[in-house]
Structure formats: structure tokens, C-alpha cells
């Protein structure tokens, strides 16, 4: 696939009161119009979300393995053809074009590598912090792209900054303990 355009997509997925929240993901298109997606999400769902469901081999609970990272596991990335019936496909999703032409091909390649690297970091999925929106925007930040969201789209987590290792350590110290930075 020779990418000629990369877009940041915002798909409406729910509401808090009257405010619609959006799920962010990335879509690349080649010259023929064939599209591929790159998306982030939780590794798993909590036990209570699986209970009572049927899997391919029977009771889904029997195959359930809790993640040591927490109820939602770690942030994971997936990619594939962006077409009807595919994950995240939304024909009315809002979009912002991030790159076109040769720059798009380079950006898509960098995004794939950044996604692999971010997934290897095994970051615990946090629904209201480092979530899928954070992960998509973090990929862009790591690739040097200062992306704005499509107008009037609210995407919780998109503005969260990457964890600061120094502050992470400091937060684990007991109150009153001296902190040497």
C-alpha cells in the first residue's frame, strides 16, 4: 500500500448528558482509495463485562484470563482494512488530514513503528486518562505531528500528556519523605 494521505478520524461513540464523546483513530489511503486504519484500545474488558457471554468455544469466562495490568489490560494497537464491517468503520466520522503525498507515506510508516514501540511499553489502559484517544494522539506527538481535533469534537484523553518518569517516582513516595530530583 503506497499511502498518499493520512487522516485523524473522530467517531461519535457516546454521550455524557448532551455532550458527545468521540473515539480517535488514524486512517491512511492509497492512490486507489483503499484505506487502512490504525487504532488503539484496551487489551481486555473486566470480568463482569464477559460474564454470561458465549465465545467460539463455549462460555467466554472459561477462556478469560485477567490482565496483570488491570481490568482493561494494557493499551494495544491494531490495524487492517478500513471498509464496511471493519473495526471502527464509520462513514460519517469527522476527519482532519495530517499529511498528503510523500509526507503521508513517511508519516504512516513512522506511526506504525511508534505504535509498536508504545505497545511494548505495556501502559495500563485508563478509561479517563491514558486511553485510546491519548494513545492515538501520543503516536502523533512521537512522530512530531501537532494535530488538532476535528472542529467541535470532544475526545476525552486526547490532551493528556505522557507520564513524566520523575513525577511517577515522586508520587510513590510517602508523604513527608524528601524527594531528590
Amino acid at each position, binding site marked *: 500500500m503506497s499511502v498518499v494521505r493520512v487522516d485523524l478520524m473522530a467517531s461519535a*461513540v*457516546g*454521550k455524557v448528558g448532551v455532550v458527545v*464523546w*468521540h*473515539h480517535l483513530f488514524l486512517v491512511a489511503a492509497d492512490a486507489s482509495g483503499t484505506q487502512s486504519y490504525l*487504532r488503539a*484500545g*484496551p*487489551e*481486555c*474488558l473486566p470480568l463482569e*463485562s*464477559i460474564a*454470561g*457471554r*458465549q*465465545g*467460539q468455544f463455549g462460555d*467466554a469466562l472459561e477462556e478469560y484470563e485477567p490482565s496483570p495490568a488491570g481490568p*482493561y489490560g494494557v493499551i494495544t494497537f*491494531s490495524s487492517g482494512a478500513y*471498509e*464496511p*464491517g*471493519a*473495526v*471502527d*468503520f*464509520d*462513514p*460519517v466520522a469527522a476527519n482532519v488530514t495530517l499529511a498528503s503525498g510523500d509526507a503521508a507515506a513517511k508519516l504512516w510508516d513512522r506511526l506504525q513503528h511508534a505504535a509498536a514501540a508504545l505497545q511494548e511499553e505495556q501502559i495500563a*489502559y485508563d*478509561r*479517563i486518562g491514558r*486511553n*485510546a*484517544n491519548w494513545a492515538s494522539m501520543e503516536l502523533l506527538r512521537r512522530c512530531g505531528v501537532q494535530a488538532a481535533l476535528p472542529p467541535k469534537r470532544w*475526545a*476525552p*484523553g486526547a490532551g493528556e500528556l505522557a507520564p513524566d518518569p520523575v513525577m511517577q517516582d515522586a508520587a510513590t513516595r510517602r508523604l513527608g519523605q524528601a524527594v531528590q530530583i
Partner: protein
Amino acid sequence: MDAKGAQFRFEAFADAASAQAAFEAVYPIGSPVEPALQALVDMGGRCRNVGPSRFSCRYIETEKALAGFCWHVALDSDKDKAIQRIGLAVAILGI
């Protein structure tokens, strides 16, 4: 929702393969596409026409939970409006 539609609920499944098998049992290849579409809409799915005889539907379980299953169904029909192909995918959707 018709009686057949009531037989199928995404919430009963944890993967695409099992959901697709159940969906195809209720709405087999060759059966009319309209009842399948109507059932998806009735259960809260958002369906759009994405081609002359192609429909794309999305059913999100996560609207209140911030993270949950999101189901995607593609239905292709023929000139007689009979189902020719069903494609079903699921993702864990989190914002």
C-alpha cells in the same frame, strides 16, 4: 423488533466468530436483507448504505461504560434484496 430479531443479541457474545454464526442462523445467506437491517436498527445499531447494495451497521455497547464491545456488521445484498454476504467484526472500544 420481530421474533427473529429478538433471538439475536450482541450482548450474548464475546467474539465475532460466535456472533456471526448466531447472526447467520437467524438471518441466513439468501434471506431478505431488510429484516436483518431492521433488527439491527431496532436494537440500537446505526446502519448506513455504503454502496448500491451494501450496508454498514455499528452497534456500540460502550455508551455508558466508556469501554466495551463495539460491533460492526457489513451486509451485501443482491438485486432481489437477499443477503449475499455477512461480515462481522468486534473491537473493544474505549475512548
